[in-house]
């Protein structure tokens, strides 16, 4: 049954949720109960003032009762069905399900969103657990104390008499461990809370620089003239190494801004659209500079967000500007299938790939990558390459039109079992 024929079913469900009798609702909106009955069983179409009146009595927006009102809900339900994989959900009848059982549909969609959120948390924590020694030590403390409590309490819970000396000792141990667990859990929670907000908990210098650039929206108005970077700009960075990295990054920004002034790039974008090759020709500069510049433009110049990743020849991530839907691991160890890394095997050859990242969102992106020598060439010296990848969102109307290359975020949280690029098993396949 199509969605537009189910307005009546939705009215019925909403009426029952509101605890109204059919006759009461009919009276309130000035129609007969038998006519309302026909509407509720989808035997009469409804619209206009009557629909508005019914919605008002039921305390919902009219759009909740009509076609399209459940679009987001239905999209979430479809996503839940796809994620469930082998489960044979009646996807073709999802409209009917949402119409007939809006409450249950909401519950399912809510649970699906919650699972997605928890998976993202696992992803973040897993990433941090691997690379953050403080977090690893804190969790070790918590788990060791939990092990002690579990072992001790199991002994105490066993049937039969325990010698008084042992019993007292285990009670004491349990008391100590409980206190220790409370303290270590509190410290861990504080650490996790602080790490989201504190300036002091930036971990490695690169992270501190990323946080600094992100806080400025990746755009520095003061550098748009191409003037040298004042040292004061990076004085807020706490670590010396971060200040050095930040200074280099901002100097590069100033150079890019001078080569591609904001007014000129705005005009070039109007004329050529999002075509980095054309922009590179217009400004007689290389693609990495164009990519960097595009990623630094404010919303009034470029109306949509773009992502950017830079790595060195070892694959270590040097800079990341995240883009919603395209997960970037915090500390490198990214998916080797990213065009960013493919470009390293074909230096100076621009690569463009439509990719879809495995996982919850499964959104598509256009990834444009190129690897370039970091320094000027010298005789008898191997060039050292870096690679840069611009990540462009793909309009939903365009998705699914071509075969997108499936990539992951990092092996640890990638659900794809069979992959020639896999480095290590995924925690997702281990029951998380």
């Amino acid at each position, binding site marked *: 049954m199509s969605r537009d024929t189910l307005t009546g079913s939705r009215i019925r469900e909403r009426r029952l949720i509101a605890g109204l009798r059919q006759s009461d609702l009919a009276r309130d909106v000035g129609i007969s109960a038998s006519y309302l009955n026909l509407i509720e069983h989808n035997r009469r179409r409804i619209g206009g003032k009557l629909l508005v009146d019914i919605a008002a009595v039921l305390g919902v927006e009219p759009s909740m009762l009509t076609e399209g009102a459940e679009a987001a809900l239905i999209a979430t339900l479809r996503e839940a069905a796809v994620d469930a994989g082998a489960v044979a959900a009646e996807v073709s009848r999802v409209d009917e399900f949402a119409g007939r059982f809006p409450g249950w549909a909401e519950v399912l969609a809510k649970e699906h969103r919650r699972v997605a959120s928890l998976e993202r948390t696992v992803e973040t924590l897993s990433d941090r*657990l691997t690379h953050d020694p403080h977090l690893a030590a804190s969790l070790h403390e918590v788990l*060791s104390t939990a092990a002690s409590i579990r072992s001790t309490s199991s002994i105490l819970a066993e049937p039969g008499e325990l010698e008084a000396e042992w019993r007292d000792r285990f009670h004491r141990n349990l008391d100590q461990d409980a206190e220790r667990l409370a303290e270590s859990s509190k410290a861990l929670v504080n650490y996790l809370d602080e790490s989201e907000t504190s300036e002091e908990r930036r971990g490695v210098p690169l992270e501190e620089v990323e946080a600094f650039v992100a806080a400025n929206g990746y755009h520095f108005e003061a550098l748009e003239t191409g003037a040298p970077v004042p040292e004061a700009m990076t004085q807020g960075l706490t670590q010396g190494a971060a200040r050095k990295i930040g200074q280099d990054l901002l100097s590069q920004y100033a150079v890019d801004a001078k080569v591609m002034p904001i007014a000129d790039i705005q005009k070039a974008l109007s004329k050529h659209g999002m075509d980095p090759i054309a922009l590179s020709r217009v400004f007689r500069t290389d693609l990495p500079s164009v990519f960097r510049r595009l990623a630094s433009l404010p919303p009034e110049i470029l109306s949509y967000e773009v992502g950017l990743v830079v790595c060195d020849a070892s694959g270590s991530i040097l800079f990341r500007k995240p883009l919603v839907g395209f997960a970037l691991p915090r500390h490198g160890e990214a998916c080797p299938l990213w065009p960013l890394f493919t470009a390293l095997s074909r230096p100076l050859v621009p690569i463009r790939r439509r990719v879809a990242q495995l996982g919850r969102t499964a959104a598509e992106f256009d990834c444009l990558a190129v690897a370039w020598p970091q320094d000027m060439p010298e005789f008898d010296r191997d060039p050292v390459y870096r690679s840069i990848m611009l990540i462009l969102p793909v309009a939903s109307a365009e998705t699914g039109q071509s075969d997108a290359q499936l990539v992951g975020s990092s092996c640890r949280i990638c659900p794809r079992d069979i992959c020639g690029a896999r480095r290590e098993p995924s925690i997702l396949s281990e029951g998380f």
Partner: protein
Amino acid sequence: MNRRVLLIEDEPNITEAIRFLLTRDGWQVVTHADGSDAVEVISNENPDLVILDLMLPGKSGMEILRELRELEGMEKLPVLMLTARGQSRDREMAEKAGVSRFMTKPFSNAEVLTAVRDLHAQATQL
């Protein structure tokens, strides 16, 4: 003669609980809490089985295991490794280093007892 187990663990309350469990199960339990001289202690005590924590002060359980397996006569000594780090790479490293069994915290008492009994039974059948 009592079967002897050497428990190398720096968490005193875990040590106490495991010592109680194994003593009740008929084991003679020797304990040690420092990693730096653990290999010497194992050599001197000559236990039937070792329970080894991964994260120890002085020297990690992984290093101790590697050094132990280099010693003559210690190649087959059953070693049960305990760790709060359950990552697959730690497990793989421990297996490469010659661990007999790998157990993640928090474990149950039954798991520890079963593992110790199994490892000892396997070792005595060899």
